């Protein structure tokens, strides 16, 4: 019981508001904006480094900055990873396994 009380009183101050609803929604919006830019400019050469191996063209640099601003770093990585995975799956489905990737 004492341990529980001690636990409850610890970290009583910080509430990570960046995971609450408003922050989440802002993050999602900027994330969608950034990835839409990627889709639109997919014919341009990706020169900038995002994270976890994702590259993006310089046109989307501003949106990238906003995206990183609004979302936690771990979330950014998570979304990038998810995007790469989806991209790979669609590429596989479109090519039928022709390109060696």
């Amino acid at each position, binding site marked *: *019981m004492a*341990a*529980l009380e001690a*636990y*409850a009183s*610890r*970290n*009583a101050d*910080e*509430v*990570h*508001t960046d*995971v*609450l*609803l408003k922050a*989440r929604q802002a993050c*999602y919006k900027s994330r969608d904006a950034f990835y839409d830019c990627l889709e639109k400019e997919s014919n341009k050469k990706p020169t900038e480094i995002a994270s976890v191996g994702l590259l993006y063209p310089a046109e989307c640099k501003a949106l990238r900055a906003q995206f990183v601003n609004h*979302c*936690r*770093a*771990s*979330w950014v*990585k*998570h*979304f990038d990873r998810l995007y790469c995975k989806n991209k790979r799956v669609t590429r596989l489905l479109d090519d039928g396994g022709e390109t060696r990737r």
Partner: protein
Amino acid sequence: MATAIVRSAKNLRNLHQRFYFHTLLTKCRPPIPSPTIADNIQHRALPLIQQAIPFGIGFQSFAADQRFSSTSTTTGTVQSGHSKPNSEGGDKSGDSNQSKSDTGKPIRGGPISWLSFLLLALTGAGIIWYYDKEKEQHIEEINSASQAVKQGPSVGKAAIGGPFKLINHDGKNVTEKDFLGKWTVIYFGFTHCPDICPDELQKLAAAVDKIKENSGIDIVPAFISVDPERDTVEQVREYVKEFHPKLIGLTGSPDEIRNVARAYRVYYMKTAEEDSDYLVDHSIVMYLMSPKMEFVKFFGKNNDVNSLADGIIKEIKQYKR
């Protein structure tokens, strides 16, 4: 039989017509006792002779085939067996059989006739029809059995669930006993979850409202954090507030969380990237617990709001029965 064969051998040497047959048949084993057949047929009826002889030709060639495949002892029985029914039916189907006899198949009076063919077809059709009916019945039985209400105790329950000692989002200590008396849906997650936990909790909240609307049943949604180090009581309170007023958030000491996760067979693992900013990999599942806090059913990520709500209502109705 032996004397007949000897007699026929002598006759064959003498007669020209029979010599023709003899040459045909000497390739194989002992010659056919053709006089025997002729004798039998002559004994039956005289008018048959005119038909019998050409028939006899075909019959003997058929017999020749028989000779190739059977031993000499059985051929005799074949001969005598065929000669009797042949002569009986010979009257009616003599003409048609002549063409058939040229090909060497004794259909007339044999075991195969149009009647027997008809019976065979009927029997076959009957068997197929019967089999189909049985199969249909069997499939129906399986279908109805799978949809029928399964009594809980007789089927057996999964060993999911158990006692726990956690802290709810108001800071109060709760155990599983506090959830008795109402249906509970428990979801395991953490507040720092990027997209999945918010979506699942939103789905759960919508389902709770839908269930209340459709069937008037009160469901208590519960959220248990698998990230106790970052999910303090305040954090959890702020988090669950946004989803549903009835959503209860639970957290606790890392040991207690570990016990609860083990009891509910929930996998969770910190993807330790940096110190404070990490994600927790965990199983995405909602557990439906009965008013006795016994496990009833789980729902995965693939269910949408409607299927979740319908699934829960169905389980509740079945349980009451």
